[in-house]
């Protein structure tokens, strides 16, 4: 019999809980996906496309053994975004990605989430010195990549769209 489970670990940070997916997370994801905020991740998407992304995010864990976590804001219990490692077909290598939803911007939560995810991936998933794909016009994400110590590596093309590849430092190297 096939092992029919896939464990999604939970990670605690001071303000956030990185955890697996719940059906009730979908509305927050669809609100983000349908907004202009999603313009740097291939959006805005209609509800149907958001639903596909939500389920594919779960399936990714099963196929790859890693993936994006839902980010829950501990104090409010609300979903604040998604963060984690992405290796969809067509990706050059595993990517650290982050989506932070509107109400949670400007509080360093993306930094906190990305750092926790990057650390976990390096220590437990064999994914260190990973990349992030960033649109050259996505100023906020460029700033966050810089704050995380990632360096511009090259211009690239992801699913037909131009983007920049940033390389993260080895986890522990900055300690």
């Amino acid at each position, binding site marked *: 019999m096939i092992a029919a*489970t*896939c464990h*999604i670990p939970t990670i605690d940070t001071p303000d956030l809980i990185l955890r697996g*997916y719940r059906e009730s997370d979908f509305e927050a994801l669809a609100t983000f996906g349908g907004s202009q905020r999603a313009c740097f991740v291939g959006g805005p998407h209609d*509800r149907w496309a958001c*639903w596909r992304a939500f*389920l594919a995010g*779960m399936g*990714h864990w*099963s196929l790859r053994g890693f993936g994006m976590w839902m980010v829950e804001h501990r104090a409010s219990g609300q979903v604040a975004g998604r963060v984690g490692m992405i290796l969809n077909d067509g990706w050059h290598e595993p990517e650290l990605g982050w989506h932070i939803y509107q109400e949670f911007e400007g509080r360093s939560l993306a930094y906190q989430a990305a750092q926790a995810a990057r650390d976990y991936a390096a220590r437990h998933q064999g994914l260190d010195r990973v990349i992030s794909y960033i649109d050259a016009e996505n100023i906020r994400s460029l700033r966050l990549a810089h704050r995380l110590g990632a360096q511009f590596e090259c211009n690239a093309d992801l699913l037909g769209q131009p983007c920049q590849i940033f390389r993260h430092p080895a986890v522990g190297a900055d300690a």
Partner: protein
Amino acid sequence: MTLTLPSSRIETDRLILRLPEARDIDAYVAFLTDAQRANGFGAEPDRPRAWRWFALNIGHWALHGYGYFTMELKETGTACGMTGIWNPEGWPEPELGWVVFDGFEGRGIAHEGAACARAWAYDALGFTTLTSNIVPGNTRSVRLAERLGARFERSYVNVQMGEDMLYRHPGPEALNT
């Protein structure tokens, strides 16, 4: 948390219905990127998007406890199609779906698989009714739906497929009498 995938596996005379596994990806991609063959199902433009469909089907299993099975030919172990219960966001109700991959048509595989998946949905999942959504012009699927005892109920606009026909299957009681 743990993503739990049911360990459902069903056998018919010629088929094994099982959860999709990574080794099925190429067969799914070949089907999904074949614009003509996947027209009534929802074709994908390229391999990356077909891969994501494969991943979302696994997510569907994890979220709902059901989804599309891979139909495997017992004799050869080859993936020859999919059948199962599908219930995406925006769907009118859960549906019984089926497709047969290139080279496996004309052997009654879809009928054998879909009848089995329907019985499983009634017996194991407790569904009391099931529909199938068929795009106008897909005469093969209409024929199979009718052969399975389903009847045309109404036309409507589907979020993915556009104009669509809804067929309703006989319920569990009707099948058991």
